[in-house]
């Protein structure tokens, strides 16, 4: 029994290889990119628009709203990263309805790659927002004693991100695989539906957590802003 689509190899040349994870990822990428391109090819800016444009607008505005609710003030700056996280994980989960498809997020390599991206993106956004010193200062708050704990927290939450998504997606596929061998009728379908739900929930959780981390990295600056506003109002 295999735990990851990484193990399905199509081609290998030394260190380079083409496994099911990469292949399905390309498929999902192709689907998203081509779908977006087709819909946004002829966007209308007036009051009449196509159903597909409507759908995409709903999706994009919903993501923007979520990012804003987390506490990031300029969602258009973060939507490229956070939105793509959500769409990729979500689409990878939704595609499980296609027979023979293995979700690339069911591979710990993929989730680790995504978690690494978040791990890198958080300090980048933090530094962009409040400068290197400002960002680094957030590690020794409230006291210098907290520095190791902050670093541990940073690493452990990245690990948790990767493992949580992997565990959920892998378990979904695994359960269906097991159920198919026990009760081949009806139950696998129910579980697939459940898998779709958990996949969407995981996509939401993953992107929201990433948003929260970014928000936390830019929070120090926000506190200063709020303080300034208060002093201004007092004046």
């Amino acid at each position: 029994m295999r735990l990851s689509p990484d193990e399905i190899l199509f081609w290998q040349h030394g260190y380079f290889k083409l496994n099911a994870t990469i292949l399905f990822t390309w498929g999902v990428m192709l689907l998203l990119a081509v779908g977006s391109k087709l819909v946004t090819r002829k966007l209308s800016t007036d009051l009449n628009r196509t159903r597909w444009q409507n759908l995409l607008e709903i999706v994009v505005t919903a993501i923007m709203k979520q990012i804003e609710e987390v506490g990031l003030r300029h969602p258009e700056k973060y939507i490229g990263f956070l939105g793509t996280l959500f769409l990729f994980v979500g689409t990878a989960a939704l595609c499980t309805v296609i027979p023979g498809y293995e979700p690339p997020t069911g591979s710990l390599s993929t989730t680790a790659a995504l978690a690494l991206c978040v791990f890198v993106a958080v300090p980048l956004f933090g530094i962009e927002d409040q400068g290197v010193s400002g960002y680094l200062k957030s590690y020794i708050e409230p006291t210098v004693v907290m520095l190791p704990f902050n670093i541990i927290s940073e690493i452990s939450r990245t690990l948790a991100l990767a493992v949580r998504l992997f565990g959920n997606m892998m378990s979904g596929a695994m359960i269906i695989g097991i159920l198919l061998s026990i009760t081949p009728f009806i139950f696998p379908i129910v579980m697939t539906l459940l898998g779709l739900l958990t996949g969407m929930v995981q996509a939401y959780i993953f992107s929201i957590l990433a948003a929260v981390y970014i928000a936390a990295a830019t929070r120090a600056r926000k506190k200063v802003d709020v303080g300034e506003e208060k002093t201004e109002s007092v004046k």
Partner: protein
Amino acid sequence: MLIDWFTVIAQTLNFLILVWLMKRFLYKPILHAIDQREKLIAKELADAAATQSDAQKERDEFQHKNMAFDQQRAALMSKATDEAKAERQRLLDEARKAADDLSAKRLESLRNDVRNMNQDITLRTQQEVFAISRKVLTDLADTSLEKSILERFIDKLKTSKGEEKDQLTAAIKVTRNPVIVRTGFDLSAELSATTERSIKDTFGIENQIRFETAPDLIGGIELVTDGHKLSWSIADYLKSMENGIAELLDDKSKSEADVEPAPEAKHGD
């Protein structure tokens, strides 16, 4: 081993590529479209608000104008009514005045007619009287009357004095033309001789005397030389009487014209 590091690197690259693709094909165009639409809606709302306010303004203006128009119309109406009343009064007055004038004229012309008729009657009467007188005297002028008339004329020649006679005498003495004696009837040879002698004696001349007959000299005689004349006739009396009566009639008509305008003063109210 669950983690394949090559796959991790490949997936990281894949994800970054996907981020770029999504930014390029999804977020930017969609957000741009939304922004454009929001701008459009905002613009249309602003336009609608502007249009509404314009419409409101125009409606207010229209109502204001309507009210002003109504007032103006009422004012014009009352003015027109007043003018019409005034015009009516004026026309009535004019018509009344014209009627008064016309009746006055008619009265005047009637009076003139009456006056003319009176004059005509008077003139006719006068002419008739003179005609009758002439007829009577013509009928009466017989030889005995002629004789007495001639005697009367010779007597007048003899008794006449003053400038008239002197001038006539001078004229007769100077002229070489014959002295003409006109009578209204044929003189007998005896009477002619008597008359010629009397004239020659009276003026002391030897001029030739020529006798002519002029029937319009009713019972009269006249002595004519170059530009001078001495006459006596009943027609002269009649003529002077006719002149006297004509003068009298003229005076009377003038005095009537002066008195008549008085009764017309009461018209015109």
